[in-house]
């Protein structure tokens, strides 16, 4: 679709983040931005980036096709990514992927006929201590198994929004893309969504057990038990 004035204004905001004369640095966030408009990187999106940055469409296409997060076809409302790399695979990540694929009837990078879910297997998602992990629009569901993963996608297909283990409450792929373009998540409490669970503080808990009572560090930490942070108020 043609880009709106709001999108043009957003593009100018992005370009302004980078040093004078270095506007091409804005290309990756701008591709996230056009993906937020169209649900994927379209020919119009490529043309828009090229025009705004004064580079060729071929140059933009070369970049857009290099990175896996830019989608060539409209993604579903919910991008379900299952890590199948080693630490997750050791604990059943490949089984989670296989079960979801069977259950949804789609393979890697394919979308269910109702347009609700795009499934993908992902490479390491930097949450190996929470393995096996999957993400929905990049929010973490930790320590999943084939059954719990099916429950999550079933809920999504019913139009519900299951609560991630870590991350903000689910937002749409389009909203997530806009945040990837570098814009703040406007939802109250989004920043406060859980970030750290027990594995992240495994060593810290051992240290706390041995911390002499009354020290500031120990006391501060002991006021709170894991999981560390919970949705309270935004920062």
């Amino acid at each position, binding site marked *: 679709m043609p880009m709106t004035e709001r999108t043009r204004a957003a593009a100018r905001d992005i370009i302004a983040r980078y040093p004078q004369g270095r506007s091409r640095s804005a290309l990756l966030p701008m591709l996230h931005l056009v993906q937020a408009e169209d649900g994927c990187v379209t020919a119009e999106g490529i043309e828009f980036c090229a025009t705004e940055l004064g580079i060729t469409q071929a140059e933009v296409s070369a970049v857009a096709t*290099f990175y896996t997060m830019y989608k060539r076809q409209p993604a579903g409302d919910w991008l379900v990514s299952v890590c199948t790399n080693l630490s997750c695979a050791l604990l059943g990540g490949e089984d989670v992927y296989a079960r979801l694929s069977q259950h949804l009837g789609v393979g890697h990078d394919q979308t269910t006929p109702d347009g609700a879910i795009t499934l993908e297997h992902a490479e390491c998602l930097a949450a190996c*201590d929470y393995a096996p992990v999957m993400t929905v629009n990049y929010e973490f569901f930790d320590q999943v198994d084939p059954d719990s993963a099916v429950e999550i996608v079933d809920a999504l297909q019913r139009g519900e929004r299951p609560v991630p283990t870590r991350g903000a409450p689910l937002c749409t792929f389009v909203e997530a893309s806009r945040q990837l373009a570098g814009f703040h998540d406007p939802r109250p409490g989004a920043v406060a969504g859980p970030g750290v669970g027990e594995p992240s503080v495994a060593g*810290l808990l*051992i240290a706390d057990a041995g911390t002499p009572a009354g020290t500031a560090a120990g006391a501060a930490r002991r006021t709170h038990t894991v999981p560390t942070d919970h949705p309270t108020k935004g920062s």
Partner: protein
Amino acid sequence: MPVTPVLTGRWNTPESWTLATYERTDGYQALRQALEMGPDGIIGLVKDSGLRGRGGAGFPTGMKWSFIPQGDGKPHYLVINADEGEPGTCKDAPLMMADPHSLIEGIIIASFAVRANHAFIYLRGELVHCGRRLRAAVAEAYHAGYLGADILGSGFSLDLVVHSGAGAYICGEETALLDSLEGRRGQPRLRPPFPATHGLYASPTVVNNVETIASVPYIVRRGVEWFRSMGRERSPGPKIYSLSGHVTRPGQYEAPMGTTLAELLEMAGGIRGGRRLKAWTPGGSSTPMLTADHLDVPLDFEGVAEAGSLLGTAAIMIMDETVDMLRVVRRLTQFYAHESCGKCTPCREGTPWMVGILSRLERGEGDVTDVDTLLDACDNIFGRAFCALADGATSPIVSGITFFRDEFLRAVPTGSAPGHAGTSALATESAVTESAATDSVAGSPDALARAH
């Protein structure tokens, strides 16, 4: 128990990611000290501390900073490599999630030291929630006068941009990261020239890992002697060790450099289910695997190198006796084949060929020459590409064959359903229609993933 939470110290504090919490727990005090010390004083201090890069290579941080030419009239840049994605590595994401201000304070101090007025955090795209926390923290820091013009009245100005990537492991390689940050395909550059003189926009640039830079405020505040009281002579300080895989309590364990796997396993409750350790990576999938014979290797840069591997990111992936080494190596090799950027022929062409050979062996269709062919291919890849991704791709294969040659040589796999062992999540229709889940949970002794 040798556990020394420094960087992880705030992670269990309520609302740890806010400026209020950070300031209440000594936050931004180091910045005030640093501004008094002056740039050269900070570089000297960081040199004396012996801090080495925590992103994998272990290059001395102070020395890297001192390579930035001074008085050259060019703008300087600091770029934070927050593109965490090396399989097994999961330390920077929780740091940015739980304590983003420690990274930001480190960035301000480091930028002041190398005389950079523009800094970037190149954040892995998929880490959307880290992005929320970082962007909120950056906004708070601007509001409080820690970023922007004339920081705390020092005359020093700094702009900091959080830049999300878009899904490419290769962008964790520093020159590919710089190309990506310039709005290009993330492909490595030939060196020299090095980023210290020709980095971002062909200007002097320091690229540092998240954990490295987050260490700086503590060193400024607590001093060289304190930092060197942990770890070993050439690898001092605390290190976040990330344990994953077949371990009872996976997670982040911050301990002095040189802590052994035996000690870490004791903290983490040992191997899951009381089984025996078979193999482990000391620093992510790109570091050669080690075995139960290496439990007492000091996990610092020198200790692991002496044992024939690399400390890397101290991402320890633990595999118990039930794993099928061929499947492990095949899966990791698929990763490198997928993530090869395609610039250098040996890596682009070699990695898919090696996946093919490994898959053939796994299906029981290989022959005895395949193992030598794999080693020969690795020999033709290692050191023959622009960047370390290619070298890393050979690590699982060479180390796997070194320690578990028999498993590669077997002509016919036992214990796996025919046609199953060779398929993977990457495969197309067959993997979808097959009840892979039931097969591998059925207790086959050589399943990559076992029921738990």
